[in-house]
């Protein structure tokens, strides 16, 4: 599944959910399903700043693709991370960089994207892009 397909799939999952509470219930569920964050990466340098909750994102490379691990102490944020990872993890750096975040608007959680809102969905997205950019430089050298 490429990034666009992954985005479409998530948008479909959210399509029928109209109620805010249900939407968050589903995000929390996604958060709970997020694979466990490797404890050796629970370090200050993997922390994302600009978040009201604590957020860790670690990126590695497998077969030329960027693989992300991430975690948060807030469950809704963890759910937002799960959404981002389903879309962005396991793809080539150039694909990650060129992907549009518009699907978040379609899900209806773009209110979390406002750069002034200190919950860091925008910070997390930026961090993911930064990792992709860094690996692009390394892999394409």
């Amino acid at each position: 599944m490429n990034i666009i397909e992954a985005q479409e799939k998530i948008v479909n999952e959210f399509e029928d959910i109209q109620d805010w509470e249900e939407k968050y219930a589903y995000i929390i569920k996604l958060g709970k399903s997020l694979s466990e964050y490797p404890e050796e990466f629970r370090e200050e340098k993997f922390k994302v700043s600009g978040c009201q909750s604590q957020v860790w994102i670690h990126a590695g490379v497998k077969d030329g693709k960027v693989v992300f691990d991430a975690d948060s102490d807030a469950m809704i944020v963890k759910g937002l991370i799960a959404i981002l990872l389903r879309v962005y993890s396991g793809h080539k750096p150039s694909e990650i960089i060129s992907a549009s975040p518009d699907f978040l608007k379609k899900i209806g959680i773009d209110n979390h994207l406002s750069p002034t809102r200190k919950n860091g969905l925008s910070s997390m997205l930026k961090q993911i892009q930064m990792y992709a950019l860094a690996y692009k430089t390394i892999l394409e050298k």
Partner: protein
Amino acid sequence: MDDSTVFTEKTTDSVSKIFNVDEVRADFPILSRMVKEKPLVYLDNAATTQKPQAVIDSIVHYYTYENANIHRGLHFLSELATESYENARLKVKEFINAMSASEIVFVRGATEAINLVASSLCRANYFGDGDEIILTEMEHHANIVPWQLLCERKNLKIRVIPIDDNGDLDMDTFKSMVNEKTKLVSVVHISNSLGTINPVKEIINYSHEHDIPVLLDGSQSTPHIKVDVQELDCDYFVFSGHKVFAPTGIGVLYGKTFRLDDLPPYQGGGDMIRKVTFEETTFNDLPHKFEAGTPNIEGGIALGTAIDYLSQFDREVLSNYEDKLLKYATAKLSEIDGLKIIGTAKEKASVVSFIIEGIHPYDIGTLLDTYGIAIRTGHHCTQPIMQRYKLPATARASFTFYNTLEEVDRLVEGLLRVKKMFS
């Protein structure tokens, strides 16, 4: 619960308007709006308060009928605007019972007021090498960072009065901290994150016994209690308009006349001068020497209107009502399994910070928002407090006199729903 809505107890001032919460709510148009298809429950009053229609109208009125630059024009509108603005200063003087209106300096807010005092004290060479400033562990960043910036320029030391687990100041430690190096005590009157009402009278008296001036951060006290700066005898007092039902961008620095006389101007520009040549400038009288440039005229006027609005009530009746909300909220929230209130000082204003075991405050705030309930989550600009309690954040509900017991019930119901989602 409906017995709470009307307070008809004896007032000290016979002309005070009888407080009725339903009538008061009708004065604040935003309170009747819907949020996420639910009636708004606004419990973030410690961050900013909503504005009564009279305050909103006064801004419109100013621009519709009075707008002109103040103090310099001879024409009708300029005199009208000047009169309205200076009349607002008189209202502030009455509001905190200053000795004179010239002791009232209009600023952008409490933050600018503290920065003004810090910066001007510094330029007056008030502090010597190794001098000390005493703050409390519960200060807002606005009463920490300006002094730290000062410390970088002078070799100053900040000393911090610790608090106990309840959020009460350790007054014995305070007294033991005061020494010949202590040059200023700058403390918060009421804590925005814990609600603690500090024993400021005791702090001021003790400091004055040692000839140390005291600055009070009244950002949270002015909305909740009647402040009398002469009775308190504080040297400086600061507050923000937007926390007392006035617009943002206007605030007040009060200083005793001799304290303000001793301070050099903060910013240079128009309105603060008496005579300017390229060789030398002489400065205007108090308070104008601190008010460079065209001020926030409509903000000052609207602050006056907000004070008028508050002053129609007996402030004690409002305080008692808020106290009732606080006690009710404290009792109801305490019944929630796993909920812990942070800040249980002996004397408290209507602020309740709390955590719920196993649920991050961020999740609590986000979910309550979907029920139309506005609370605050985070460190509340008091990170040292969070470090003290070893918490990354808390959730905070802060009440004012337009809140109701029913709204407390909505908060409790909301929290129970949040808990259910995490069970």
